[in-house]
């Protein structure tokens, strides 16, 4: 499959580049054809593929669960209904276990995060060459199907969570209480600058670690799929070996993508719990 590329490096680079839409250097708007053009576009450009699959999978999630929600009743559930209720129960238990307060937002938030991220990650299991190839047929220079391998997506999620953490902190502790927590802890008052730096780093580390953990795991996983795919061009024996490797990695990856979605959800709940706790 890598045959149509100049070398392995270009193949990998191609598969890890997003389809970006923005203003080019000459002032016209359009899709970027290469890393240089993407760099020229600056911040006000958009990764069309990431957004498309992210929104698409989110809508799929909402549609599937909404179907179950419409038919929800206390009678014996069947089929899809049953699965959805199992998920709801699982999320509800996780939230009850980690979040000590009462909130109408945390549980739906956790559900959205878990299922949505799982679906985004699941795209990783689609053959790495299939989607770029389909994209090429449609005349798109790049097409990356796994949105969670795009840091914009993972940071978008984690910054959303971070905004909620700030909002909950101020809501439950008051602006003063929130500042006091940052300034007068862990050292006494006269060490305020040190406290602010320490606690500030702790606070900032939350969204950054959330986003980078998810991005790093999925990016690395995608990279390994691409490297395995490179082996198919290395002759019969290497190709068969690569097939086994891909199967093994895909099976292992099922675990990874579920785990990453779960970790993101659990940490979100924990962060919000910490934010809403008045006693330290």
């Amino acid at each position, binding site marked *: 499959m890598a045959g149509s590329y100049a070398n392995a490096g270009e193949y990998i680079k191609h598969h890890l580049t997003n389809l970006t839409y923005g203003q080019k250097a000459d002032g016209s708007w359009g899709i970027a054809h290469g890393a240089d053009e993407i760099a020229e576009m600056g911040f006000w450009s*958009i990764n069309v593929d990431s*957004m498309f699959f*992210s*929104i698409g999978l989110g809508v799929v*999630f909402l549609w599937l669960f*909404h179907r179950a929600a419409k038919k929800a009743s206390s009678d014996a559930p069947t089929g899809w209904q049953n699965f959805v*209720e199992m998920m709801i129960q699982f999320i509800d238990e996780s939230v009850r276990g980690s979040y000590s307060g009462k909130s109408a937002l945390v549980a*739906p938030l956790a559900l*959205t995060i878990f299922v949505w991220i799982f679906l985004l990650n699941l795209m990783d299991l689609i053959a790495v060459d299939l989607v770029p190839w389909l994209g090429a047929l449609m005349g798109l220079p790049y097409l990356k199907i796994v949105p969670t391998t795009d840091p914009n997506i993972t940071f978008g999620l984690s910054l959303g969570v971070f905004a909620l953490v700030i909002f909950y902190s101020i809501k439950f502790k008051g602006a003063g209480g929130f500042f006091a927590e940052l300034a007068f802890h862990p050292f006494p008052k006269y060490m305020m600058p040190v406290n602010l730096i320490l606690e500030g780093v702790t606070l900032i580390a939350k969204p950054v670690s959330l986003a980078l953990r998810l991005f790093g795991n999925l990016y690395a996983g995608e990279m390994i799929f691409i490297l395995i795919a490179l082996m198919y061009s290395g002759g019969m024996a290497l190709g068969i070996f690569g097939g086994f490797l891909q199967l093994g990695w895909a099976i292992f990856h099922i675990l990874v993508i579920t785990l990453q979605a779960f970790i993101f959800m659990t940490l979100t709940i924990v962060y919000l719990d910490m934010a809403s706790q008045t006693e330290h």
Partner: protein
Amino acid sequence: MNFNATLIGQMITFAIFVWVCMKYIWPPLIAALEERNARISEGLAAAQRGQQDLEEAEIKVKESLNEAKSQAQEIINQAQKRANEIVDEAKEGAREEADKIKVAATADIDQQVTAAREQLRKEVSSIALAGAEQILKREVDAKAHAAVLDDLVAQI
């Protein structure tokens, strides 16, 4: 890693999805689950109550069975007593009847005996008359008299 407006787009998308989930998806599902939980615990409580009712009913059944048994025993005893009474009455009646019959029979026998005696007397007197006739016809002979008298005696 190059950041661009996708970041903002994703944040907006995220907010909208969470809002939709919070508004339209989570509440009906969790409500259904809670309702089912309530129904299940209600059902379990009802089953418990049913069990208790059953036990109480069993005790009641045993009690009424015992009562019925003792009543039946009483009735049987009464019936037996009544039967004995009837038998005794019957015996008494029979005895009276027998006595009556015996009395009647005795009276009858007495009557017949009297009649027989009357007849015997008549016969004896007629025989004595006949003997006296024969004696008067013949000569008085002690020996002959004796013979007649013996004959008489034998006839009586």
